[in-house]
């Protein structure tokens, strides 16, 4: 899983049926120090996350499709949590 920030969303009318009715978020993965970690990714929204929020991203298909309740779907990433705090042991 990764920490990311929701920076927007995608509109796509022509798409796999299992993506119907799902918000498709643009997420910027983050390092623990808050800096960008590679390029943006797209993830289906399982927790109604909003733009600007720091989120938990499942980055593997089985967990992603399970989180959005759509088995056997071409989904490989999902936002599965909104992060309140991250604490690192000193």
């Amino acid at each position, binding site marked *: 899983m990764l920490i990311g920030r929701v920076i927007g969303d*995608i509109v796509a009318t022509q*798409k796999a049926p299992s993506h119907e009715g799902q918000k*498709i978020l643009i997420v910027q993965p983050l390092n623990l120090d808050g800096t960008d970690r590679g390029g*943006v990714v797209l993830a289906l929204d399982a927790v109604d996350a909003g733009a600007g929020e720091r989120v938990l991203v499942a980055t593997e298909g089985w967990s992603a499709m399970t989180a959005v309740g759509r088995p*056997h779907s*071409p*989904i490989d990433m999902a936002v599965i949590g909104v992060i309140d705090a991250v604490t690192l042991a000193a």
Partner: protein
Amino acid sequence: MFLARVVGNVVATMKDPAFTGKKILVIQPINKSGDAEGAKILALDSVGAGAGETVYCCRGREASFPWLPDEVPTETSIIAIVDQINVEKL
């Protein structure tokens, strides 16, 4: 999932039978601003995407799910044609 632009196609008459009748497209991964990022790769098309169109793709085993119950040996598939990319000003 990740954003990409369709930049070409591949014709192969001798191929895995599960690929018969399916388009193999050359795609250029793009960043949130639409600029090319990373190397071009091949993806199997499941939505009828054409050259120049912005799409998004799924990776991994899930990439073969648009064609279930057929077992299609693809690990990257185009699963949506993107109408809009909304990046918020955070």
